[in-house]
């Protein structure tokens, strides 16, 4: 593997809660609590997890859209953790974001062509004539008709709006594209169109993706590597094939088994690993393993000490006391 395009070490993003009473200590939401990963150039890292697991905050922290509490973010060899002002602004041309909701992420008063051109205007890329040409090229690249540049967002369907979002993100020719649930708000039949477009762009332009989704099947389809998040931490990270063939962490196993599938049907539902309750609050996470309270195989030790993220096989990392290597094979607690 060549030098990674993105390298994140021990990223933490904590938020202070609004202070209601001077008598109580101020509460901190540990939205992201020590996350590390690399993304090689031209590959896709898929981050899966349930709502509140910190997926979106990782993405926002990575792009410095929220204040980073601690950790280090390196993009293309440049440490951007502490970059400020103009320097950070210029870095932004290398990293762009596709938002989940194609309805609220486009300004309803601005024409589609202007929306797509705006990053070029803001970052001062090219002459006006070059910008016009670039916008036309982008409309073609994402499959929008050139004359639709003059339309307003409400004149497009959800899928088309997501194409505008993608065109806007592509405008400054970024190396890294962060896609935050890019198809969740779309109708099922439209999702395939957008997923195919993103895959084609990856093949054609060699873009690197951080792809956030709660949908296991979508991640299996797009990602080269998978990271599973639970309550602000990565609990498992592995290459796609290894992960989907045999997830190691009990949470990954449970999450995968919870997905209803066409072929699995009722049998799959009957074999499902049942998780009770909801994830605990990130305000005051438990001292041991954060999954212990819902884990079907938790032991007393799991509630006391936080497991480290350990490499069990090449590229397969897991944060669980109970996964171990016995005689060269990885033994899972749920086997």
């Amino acid at each position, binding site marked *: 593997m060549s030098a990674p395009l993105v390298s994140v070490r021990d990223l933490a993003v904590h938020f202070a809660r609004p202070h209601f009473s001077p008598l109580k200590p101020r509460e901190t939401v540990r939205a992201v609590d020590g996350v590390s990963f690399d993304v090689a150039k031209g590959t896709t890292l898929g981050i899966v997890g349930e709502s509140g697991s910190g997926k979106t905050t990782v993405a926002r922290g990575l792009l410095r859209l929220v204040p980073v509490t601690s950790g280090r973010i390196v993009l293309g060899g440049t440490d951007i953790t502490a970059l400020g002002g103009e320097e950070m602004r210029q870095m932004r041309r290398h990293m762009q974001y596709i938002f989940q909701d194609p309805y609220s992420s486009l300004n309803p008063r601005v024409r589609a062509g202007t929306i797509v051109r705006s990053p070029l205007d803001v970052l001062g890329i090219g002459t006006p004539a070059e910008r016009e040409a670039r916008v036309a090229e982008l409309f073609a690249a994402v499959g929008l008709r050139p004359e639709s540049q003059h339309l307003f967002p409400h004149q497009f369907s959800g899928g088309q709006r997501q194409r505008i979002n993608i065109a806007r993100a592509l405008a400054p020719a970024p190396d890294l594209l962060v896609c935050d649930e890019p198809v969740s708000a779309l109708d*099922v*039949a439209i999702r395939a169109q957008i997923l*195919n477009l993103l895959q084609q762009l990856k093949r054609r332009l060699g873009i690197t993706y951080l792809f956030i989704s*709660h949908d*296991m099947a979508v991640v299996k389809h*797009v990602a080269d590597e998978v990271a599973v998040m639970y309550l602000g931490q990565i609990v498992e990270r592995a290459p796609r094939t290894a992960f989907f063939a045999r997830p190691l962490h009990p949470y990954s196993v449970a999450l995968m088994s919870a997905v209803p*599938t066409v072929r*699995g049907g009722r049998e799959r*539902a009957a074999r499902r690993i049942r998780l009770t309750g*909801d994830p605990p609050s990130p305000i005051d996470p438990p001292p041991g393993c954060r999954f212990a309270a819902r884990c079907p195989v938790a032991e007393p030790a799991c509630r006391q000490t936080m497991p480290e993220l350990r490499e069990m096989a090449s590229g397969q990392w897991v944060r669980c006391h109970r996964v171990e290597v016995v005689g060269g094979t990885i033994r899972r607690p749920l086997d």
Partner: protein
Amino acid sequence: MDGAPTTLLDISGLSVEFSGGGRTARVLNDVALTVAANETLGIVGESGCGKSMTALAILRLVPSPPGRITGGRIVFGGEDLLQAPEQRLRDVRGHRIGMIFQEPMTSLNPVLTIGDQLSETLIKHLKLDARAARARSIELLKAVGIPAPERRVDEYPHQLSGGMRQRVMIAMAIGCEPQLLIADEPTTALDVTVQAQIFELLRELRARSGMGLILITHDMGVIAEMTDRVAVMYGGRVVEEAPTADILSAPAHPYTRGLIACVPDLDAEEDSGADLLEIAGMVPSVWDLPKGCPFADRCAEAMPRCVAEMPPTSVLSAGHRVACWLQEGTGP
């Protein structure tokens, strides 16, 4: 579900129109569906295909104006709900037919406690007094798996998580032990692990009470896991209906095939990342439905006839019917 199970709900020829600005839109067109006791019927399709409208029409909750039920019969327990007086419907809604809406966040009243909202239907329909209604509310919360129900009953919706709120909605819907439960995308806003819990609960309830269940979803995986029969809706029509196993193994309508193939398959041995099958274009606007097959403009197999004429419904095998020119005359 073979043999002759008691038919609980029998919808035929149901049509709903919306009018405005001098135009008329047919949002439901000649919809026919049945649900038996102890059976789960799935309704699947994209947004704007008429799934939720069908659910609303069953309870005569179509917003009116601009909407209007223009024809058909909805026979429930031997009585045509479309002919029943409004007073009678109040006894059906929330009592004999329960409904779970899609949005647990917006379907609960934020200024009333969970207990108040649960008790309301119990007092109204079962004529319980306040004390008995409260006791029953606690029982219901317990039945849907809410921990510490004695405490939760006095809490407000904002104090509960999304999954818990949806459980409260279910508790409310089953409070009067309905014969039929309509669940409109009950888990779309929830995480998969919570979805699994809700489905488990619905399966248990059905097994225990023998109620009929209509489950509206856009997820074919959910259809496979939860339903006995499926109706695929498109452009306000049922374009295919069959026992779930038949529709998944041999989908006849190109739209049904598209819905199954357009999502990545988690069960696939290896996903090469190759392009997914796309259903080109989008759902037609109800204001602008074509005179032929509503799916014709997105269908890869469309023939000139599909654009010109509405396909008739053909029966392929027992309980499997489809409205598609490709299948015309292929039945038994």
